[in-house]
């Protein structure tokens, strides 16, 4: 299934979610385990709702209270869960490559819900869907991804997906937050918001983790907001009809001002709704490949 078809499928799930009766039976009788090694309210609940709307039995593994805390390795956890015969495991892990490793050790389908600074594919899909719904296309758009690119899996997945769909992807950040060598991968990089946002159709802001704001990667919150925080003044560098996105959770007053986050150009709330739809589409697409024992 190609990406546009997957987004079409997600589009139809939007309608399902807006009905009073939201339940489908695509995954009836199937078991979905959400295995989150890293706390995430938004992504985890989004996957949970998506699974339930498709009729799956959804189990959230609380890693904090699980055997992982007692020293079990990732592979042992995978083997143990596999023995319980789930159909889909949704995994979030703090280490890049961990989801890939786990997938090698289980028989069921595995969905990457974010691994370290590597990838967060369903986030990129929901962002693509949100853009497509609002701009009618992705091809030919200029998308500026701004902020902590270095540590961001959201950035990496969006860079790959949006570029594959024909968007011009720009990266805007202080040099300390740009991954070394990234320009050689074919992305335009900017260290100034003014230049990076010029003529952009989409301004995608990234979250800056608290531990990176105090003199390690950037000097301070004040300085970061002054030069890289998206406020009305900087948003004005982009096209007049530019739209603003943020994967959440936001640091208001750090990477984005409240008036922009809540303003007319913001798609941030729509992104959350599209999150459920895209995850339903992903799970449904997987369902068609699940073995019928």
């Amino acid at each position, binding site marked *: 299934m190609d990406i546009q078809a997957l987004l079409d499928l997600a589009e139809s799930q939007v309608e399902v979610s807006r009905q009073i009766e939201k339940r489908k039976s695509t995954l009836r009788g199937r078991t979905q385990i959400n295995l989150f090694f890293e706390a995430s309210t938004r992504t985890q609940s989004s996957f949970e709702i998506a699974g339930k709307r498709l009729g799956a039995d959804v189990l959230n593994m609380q890693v904090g209270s699980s055997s992982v805390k007692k020293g079990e390795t990732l592979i042992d956890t995978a083997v143990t869960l596999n023995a319980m015969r789930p159909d889909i495991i949704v995994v979030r892990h703090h280490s890049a490559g961990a989801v890939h490793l786990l997938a090698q050790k289980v028989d069921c389908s595995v969905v990457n819900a974010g691994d370290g600074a590597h990838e967060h594919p369903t986030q990129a899909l929901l962002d693509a869907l949100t853009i497509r719904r609002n701009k009618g296309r992705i091809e030919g758009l200029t998308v500026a991804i701004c902020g902590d690119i270095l540590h961001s899996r959201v950035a990496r997945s969006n860079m790959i997906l949006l570029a594959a769909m024909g968007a011009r992807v720009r990266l805007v950040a202080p*040099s300390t937050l740009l991954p070394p060598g990234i320009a050689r991968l074919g992305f335009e990089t900017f260290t*100034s918001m003014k230049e990076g946002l010029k003529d952009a159709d989409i301004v995608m802001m990234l979250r800056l983790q608290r531990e990176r704001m*105090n003199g390690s990667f950037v000097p301070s919150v004040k*300085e970061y907001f002054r030069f890289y925080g998206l406020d009305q003044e900087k948003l004005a560098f982009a096209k007049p009809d530019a739209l603003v996105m943020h994967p959440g959770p936001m640091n208001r007053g750090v990477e984005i001002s409240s008036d922009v986050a809540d303003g007319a150009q913001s798609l941030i709330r729509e992104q959350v709704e599209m999150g459920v739809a895209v995850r339903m589409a992903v799970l449904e697409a997987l369902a068609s490949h699940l073995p019928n024992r």
Partner: protein
Amino acid sequence: MSNQPILFKNARLIDPASGREERGGVLVRDGVIAAVGPQVAQAADAQVIDCGGQVLSPGLIDMRAFIGEPGGPYRETLKSAGEAAAAGGVTTVVSMPDTSPALDDPAVIDFIVRRARDTSIVNIRPAAALTKGLEGQEMAEIGRLKEAGAIAFTDGARSVTNAQVMRRALTYARDFDALIVHHVEDPDLVGQGVMNEGEFASRLGLPGIPREAETVMLERDIRLVRLTGGRYHAAMISCADSAEIVRAAKGLGLPVTCGVSINHLSLNENDIGDYRTFLKLSPPLRHEDDRQAMIEALVDGTIDVIVSDHNPQDVENKRLPFAEAANGAVGLETLLSAALRLVHEERVSLPRLLNALSTRPAEILGLPGGKLSVGAPADLIVFDPDAPYVLDKRDLRSLSKNSPFDEARLQGQVMLTMVAGRVVFQRDTM
């Protein structure tokens, strides 16, 4: 400020930016050079100053001076530093952030800029802290500090030992085209050392500081410059090996420049004699061979600038056993006379010397001065390069008198100093 134009005539013009030397004059109007050359027409309304054949050149730009304001006004204030600078022909002083509080906050930079404008007769441009509290751990707000008026970023007399901090600072500073100035002296290798390591220190029974305290840090920094592309200036080098390192870095085309203090061009470790604490410096005075290497590096352009490293210390900090005394010497007022020794000894040409004292600092700092050309700020000096005198530290305008040149025979005196078109110093004998 008087709006009346001033015409300097009968001068030996030296423009260290072009290397040009000729007889002529300079017309100053509205704070800038309005005309310069052998034939400058007399403006009807101009006040005329006859230079009597003496040298007229751009004012000196000193990239390194410690001023006690805020926090230590008994050592030096912006006002007293300005007076000392004017008497020494220094028209722009870069002040170090080692104050109390340290210059790591835009509000404090703003204070210095305003206070200097109100109280100092020369230009004082603050260098801000590179790391918060000069502690070498967390990068300071380079962007906001630059907006507030910081001209460069440095931890002053301290070195940033954490290479990761230095890497990120160089990386981040590049985005703002900010200059990082670094004191290259590894504090761990300095240890308890108080003077150059070697035979003389051993004879005096004083712990030594190896040259490697400097070269190890300098080599590291240059590797990081190569990695990051950040603009880097080694505040002061003191030994032959360091000159080699900088020469090689420049050969690679890296954005590296460096300075040397007037003390390291004029003095060596033997001048410490019987524990003269006014010669206790950081980096320490080195061997005569190192001093010779500094002069050669100055001549061939490896060393870009000469600084006073003006560091006022009061008697309480200096009248102590050598190992316990504070580092530092005053130098604003003697910078030019001491440097002219190299000209009198025919080691350095006068235009090259002035280039290192004025043009190169301006270029590195991105200032419009350092040249005799139309439109440049009228920051000018007139000096007699030959006038002999014996320095009496009681004549120093600086609030602190810790000069290593006390009672030294010097040659070359500033006769007049002009800042932004205004005469801020004029010797009685002119």
